[in-house]
């Protein structure tokens, strides 16, 4: 698994539940408590071990931890660059949704060896959306769900999200866009402070 993913999990655990929690999780998973390097790759088993030991330590369902991780990725101030990169997807939440098909390709433009799940957006009969999420690692759909929730908030949209049809490493995240301008949302200027 790419170091960025591992590092994200590490930051999430240590920022949300404290350094001590991360250290214990790392030890239980036999990972150096110093943590992961974002720009290196690690064996998939290591990521799995960290998640398993986080589930055991926090006594929370894996799905919930992953969804919180997704929200954390978009909303934590330290990860502002990631939120910005996602906001390049479009001016409105709807435009952003339409840009999700390209997300793995966009990510690869930035980090060529980063493998994200394949995403396929479809409109359903009731005017809602469904994102088919394939491959990568089991549970990625929950991270996506968390990220979508936080992105909707970022754009000021009101949405209902659900994960359905989980089987064989694939899953669908359904999105009902109730109000695309529910509140003002957070600002985004093309000019970053880089």
């Amino acid at each position, binding site marked *: 698994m790419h170091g960025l993913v591992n590092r994200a999990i590490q930051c999430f655990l240590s920022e949300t539940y404290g350094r001590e929690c991360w250290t214990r999780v790392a030890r239980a998973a036999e990972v150096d408590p110093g943590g992961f390097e974002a720009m290196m790759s690690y064996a998939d088993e290591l990521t799995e071990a960290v998640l398993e030991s986080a589930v055991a330590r926090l006594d929370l369902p894996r799905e919930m931890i992953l969804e919180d991780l997704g929200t954390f990725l978009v909303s934590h101030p330290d990860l502002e660059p990631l939120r910005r*990169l996602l906001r*390049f997807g*479009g001016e409105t939440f709807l435009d952003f949704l339409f840009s999700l098909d390209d997300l793995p390709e966009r990510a690869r433009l930035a980090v060529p060896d980063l493998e994200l799940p394949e995403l396929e957006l479809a409109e359903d009969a009731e005017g809602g959306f469904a994102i088919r999420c394939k491959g990568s690692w089991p549970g990625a759909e929950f991270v996506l769900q968390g990220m979508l929730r936080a992105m909707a908030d970022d754009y000021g949209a009101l949405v209902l999200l659900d994960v359905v049809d989980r089987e064989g490493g694939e899953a669908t995240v359904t999105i009902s866009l109730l109000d695309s301008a529910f509140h003002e949302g957070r600002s985004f200027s*093309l*000019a970053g402070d880089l």
Partner: protein
Amino acid sequence: MRGTRQEGVANSMIGLTGTALGRFLPMHLCLDPVGRVRQAGPTLERIAGVDLVDRPFTEILTLRRPTVVSDIGGLLALEGRPLKLTLAVAPALPLKGLVAGLPDGGAMLDISMGISLIEAVSRFELTLGDFSPTDLAVELLYLHEAKSVVSAELRRLAQRLNGARVSAEQEAATDTLTGLANRRRLEATLARLLGQGRPFALMQIDLDYFKLVNDSHGHDVGDAVLREVAHLLRAQCRTQDLVARIGGDEFVMILADIVEPFHLARIADRLIRQIEEPIHVGGFECRISASIGVAVRARQDASDAKRIMREADIALYQSKGTGRARVTVFSPTADATGDPDAA
């Protein structure tokens, strides 16, 4: 008035309304036959900060390449060629342009940020809506930002790795050739003993004739001899003692709790006799010897590491001066006579 005239121009061409043209080319200028603006793209107007319609194009921008032009005739002569220009509102920001003639004698000029994109975006606070969705500019911005984030992360990684390397080097306390302590550990040990006020002797051991071995048999043999000497010295050490190599053929032994000069001289003599035993390396028989200077630090002495090293040095100098393979234990009188620099 303005709207109908704008749309009139566009309609006469390809049936596009002015608004649609503005969406396709948000930074264009449509000029009439005398070079006045008939219509301007919305992003260009936003950047200029004023209504551009009816102004002569020369008030709005300056052509820099391929030639400077002052009227529409000059501009039309550059049709189809890549243009470099600047806007009056940002004369230091180079932009790119392309001009084409219109049937009524006017001109259509499209402008792009080119490589000034990043600066222009922050300077004019441009948004996603300021670019045509077909324009790659936003992708370029995305890529620039993503790469900046990635390279910042790589820079941090490089710094961490470099920091780790530097501290590993500093913390290394072993002489890699012989496995003895190095100067760093010697200094740490000296500081510790002095801090504890524990009595000890410091022996500075300098090999004699070692250069001869190196010169006649080569460095590999020389290195093997150094390892053999290291082995001999270590064999003479108790656990509380320390042997270090601090230079090419310079060794230092610290002997804890031994301060009696006669006893020290005997130990040193024995070391020299052992070092003088022929050393066999790669078919060669190497014969070397050693000169030794000893300095002593008794419990009540107040002293620093530099001083005791210097005293051992002076004693060693005396040993060498009196014909090698000798032992000298430093005493204040030796200080006066042994080394002219000692005062």
